[in-house]
């Protein structure tokens, strides 16, 4: 097999292009029923009564009273009900399902159900903290005391919707006392484990299979557990196949999104350097905590992004509000923090009247430095060459001089960033304990038994390449089917940029073992389990130690032109350099880079979602604008090879990294174009108008 990074045709491309690939919405059973969800119209209220009209023959309602086990969806924080019972906490909260053979009649029944509410006082402001984390590094108090000067700024970010093109969905059957769920999901075992608790049943009674996923981006990490639990309850009651597919508007209205955030950063400056930072980030968790605490962890750990600052006082809160619950989205808290930190470094340099580029370079993290959480950057950091290369490709220095003239309304912005690969802290070793199986059949075909989901990021192709190369077999001899919990062990959810590095690492180890013990014509099974590298130490209570076993790094340069009259932003070009260790397939990594950067840049200026009194105002593709082929600029991307000793062939994470730098790069470019500081994203024309008319600098 040629070098691992050389691209091969993606193994599922033909089926997808031809329309033959089956997604969950494409599946059907003969005697199938359709389910629709009855939802709260109130942000916060007690349910006085629910009036259900007389149901026609063959139609059913399913609610909290039908749940055999716990009325809670098992996530990290278990506070999210499967169905609301007596109180609703956000608009769109599920109360019951209506199930029946004709979709249109089901909808009529949903519309005919009358719920009588007693309104309660809703909260929409970020005041009610439900999770609080804090950590220190060095001695921030003394550094602040000794400072020549201190500077503080505030930053805000808005919602972002994953906007996968395939809405959420499941189809389920009930056979032989077993519940079988097929869904568009990122984490088959999250769904299975949640359903077991809700059904209070034997683990063997639940089978979860991943259908081909039409985009996820974190949106199908924890939310499908809720739908899976609801459908399981319905299947248990009705015992016929049921399909539960969201329409676009329902999907956008009720599924998890990226947390809006507010960050305050205060810096202590001494002799032209930042000696300490005091940072607080608040994220809006919505009505239930779910994964928000874990999102907060990643956000606060990203506090210094690609820089080293010796003294830190970092804290964060998840606030509960009566709005749709927020959750996982590619980047997982890091995009909010990295946006704020990148802006802050620029704003401080401006305040000090020093060259921004030199100022940032002085603080750039180096191998051997301590991370924000006092762990160690053990591996080589290629950022100096990556930055230089990105500057050269984009002609950054010439342009930033030319665009300093506020009359030209052009700007160029650059972001530097890192992303911790894999679960935060002890997650991998203590919670996930990933297991995989490699199964060789007598005919010589090798099956990867992993729970990793290919949601478009190319997990199948890359993991199969790792196995094929290690076994020295052609790719055609390797098989990797969509995970089925009856067949695959729990190798963990497909999240946190862990699949290539962690699951791929296990595949490489198992393949090495299989190769050594290979016996022709025999059925052989190799098991592997994740073992934390022993140098990784993490204290979850104090947030100290190595938060991640490895880091991926990146540089984005974005050039924009802003229309003088309308203040509309046009992105002209995006240049990037990335270090993802060793690329396992160049086309796949470059595809991640293009797609991730598109989402990251759009987060900074284009994608707007707001709510009024808990009701979302942008809940379809017309109102919530994502980039089209015309909006998306051309990209030039270069990959740097920096193999990580423990990744398969040196691979680190790639999926999330490519999103986290987009927003600050575009915001900085816009800032240069309009000559005023940008403190909030998305930097829409309305916001820029406000900035131009009210801000002083």
């Amino acid at each position, binding site marked *: 097999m040629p070098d691992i990074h050389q691209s091969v045709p993606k193994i599922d491309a033909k089926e997808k292009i031809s329309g033959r690939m089956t997604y969950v919405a*494409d599946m059907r059973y003969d005697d199938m029923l359709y389910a629709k969800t009855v939802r709260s119209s109130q942000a916060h209220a007690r349910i006085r009564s629910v009036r259900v009209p007389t149901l026609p023959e063959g139609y059913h309602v399913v609610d909290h009273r039908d749940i055999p086990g716990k009325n809670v969806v098992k996530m990290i924080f278990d506070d999210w009900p499967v169905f609301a019972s007596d109180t609703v906490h956000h608009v769109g909260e599920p109360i019951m399902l209506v199930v029946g053979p004709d979709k249109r009649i089901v909808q009529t029944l949903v519309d005919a159900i009358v719920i009588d509410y007693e309104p309660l006082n809703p909260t929409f402001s970020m005041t009610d903290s439900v999770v609080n984390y804090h950590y220190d590094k060095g001695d921030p108090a003394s550094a602040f005391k000794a400072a020549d000067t201190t500077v503080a700024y505030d930053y805000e970010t808005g919602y972002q919707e994953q906007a996968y093109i395939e809405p959420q969905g499941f189809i389920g059957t009930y056979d032989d006392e077993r519940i079988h769920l097929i869904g568009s999901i990122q984490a088959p075992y999250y769904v299975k484990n949640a359903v077991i608790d809700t059904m209070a049943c034997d683990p063997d009674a639940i089978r979860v299979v991943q259908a081909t996923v039409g985009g*996820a981006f974190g949106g199908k990490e924890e939310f499908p557990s809720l739908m899976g639990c609801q459908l399981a309850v319905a299947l248990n009651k009705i015992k016929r196949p049921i399909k539960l597919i969201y329409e676009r508007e329902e999907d956008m209205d009720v599924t998890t999104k990226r947390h809006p955030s507010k960050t305050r950063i205060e810096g202590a400056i001494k002799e032209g350097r930042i000696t300490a930072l005091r940072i607080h980030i608040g994220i809006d968790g919505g009505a239930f905590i779910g994964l928000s605490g874990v999102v907060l962890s990643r956000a606060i750990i990203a506090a210094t992004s690609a820089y080293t600052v010796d003294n830190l006082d970092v804290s964060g809160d998840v606030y509960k509000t009566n709005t749709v619950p927020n959750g996982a989205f590619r980047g997982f808290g890091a995009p909010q923090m990295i946006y704020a930190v990148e802006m802050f470094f620029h704003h401080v340099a401006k305040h000090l009247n020093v060259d921004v580029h030199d100022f940032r370079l002085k603080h750039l993290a180096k191998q051997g430095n301590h991370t924000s959480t006092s762990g160690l950057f053990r591996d080589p950091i290629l950022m100096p060459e990556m930055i230089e290369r990105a500057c050269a490709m984009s002609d950054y220095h010439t342009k930033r001089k030319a665009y300093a003239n506020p009359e030209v309304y052009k700007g160029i912005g650059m972001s530097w960033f890192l992303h911790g690969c894999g679960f935060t802290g002890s997650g991998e070793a203590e919670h996930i304990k990933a297991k995989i199986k490699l199964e060789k059949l007598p005919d010589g075909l090798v099956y990867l038994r992993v729970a990793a989901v290919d949601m478009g990021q190319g997990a199948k192709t890359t993991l199969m390449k790792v196995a094929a190369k290690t076994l020295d077999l052609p790719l055609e001899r390797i098989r990797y089917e969509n995970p089925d919990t009856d067949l695959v062990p729990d190798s963990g959810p497909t999240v946190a940029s862990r699949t290539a590095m962690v699951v791929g690492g296990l595949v490489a180890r198992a393949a090495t073992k299989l190769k050594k013990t290979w016996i022709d014509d025999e059925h052989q099974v190799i098991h592997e389990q994740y073992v934390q590298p022993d140098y990784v130490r993490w204290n979850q209570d104090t947030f100290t130690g190595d938060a991640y076993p490895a880091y991926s790094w990146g540089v984005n340069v974005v050039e924009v032109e802003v229309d003088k009259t309308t203040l509309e932003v046009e992105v002209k070009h995006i240049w990037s350099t990335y270090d993802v260790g060793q690329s396992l397939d160049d086309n796949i990594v470059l595809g991640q880079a293009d797609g991730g950067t598109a989402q990251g840049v759009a987060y900074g200026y284009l994608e707007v979602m707001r709510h009024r009194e808990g009701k979302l105002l942008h809940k379809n593709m017309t109102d919530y604008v994502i980039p089209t082929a015309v909006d998306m600029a051309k990209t030039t991307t270069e990959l740097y090879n920096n193999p990580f000793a423990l990744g398969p062939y040196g691979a680190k994470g790639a999926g999330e990294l490519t999103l986290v730098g987009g927003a600050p790069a575009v915001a900085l470019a816009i800032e240069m174009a309009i000559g005023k500081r940008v403190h909030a994203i998305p930097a829409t024309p309305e916001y820029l108008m406000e900035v131009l008319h009210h801000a002083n600098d």
Partner: protein
Amino acid sequence: MPTINFTLNGKPVSLNTDPTRRFLDVLREELTLTGPKEGCGEGECGACAVLIDGHITNSCILPLGNVSGREVMTIEGYRETKRYRVLEEAYIAEGAVQCGICIPGMIIASESLLAHNPHPTDDDIRIGLSGNLCRCTGYNMIVRAVKRAATRGKGLW
């Protein structure tokens, strides 16, 4: 119920069903052609695109009655053509496929674009595909794939 007659992928079809039904539902549920996908149901994303008399149309906002007497081509019919082979090769070679949910619609849009403009510039391609949303790829690899198909498929369009 009136009978609605049209040509689907080269074969005559006649249906006795409510003419106000969404054509996408008729295709997917009645005729079990699941190549056209539902991404938004409001004419914004192009995942449900089909060709009607050679013109790209979003079938999710099209009442069945409107296809009466017309020639409809879905990805299921189009994939049997030589032009499709060229686009397929180009999409694979350029790495233009991620989750794939938008891709059948993108292929229809690519065909519609190339049929009207066999030698498109990059900007022509971007404009031609701007009715089709893709959340995975950032479009650049798709634009390159269409370009490649235009070059390699000389004379086909």
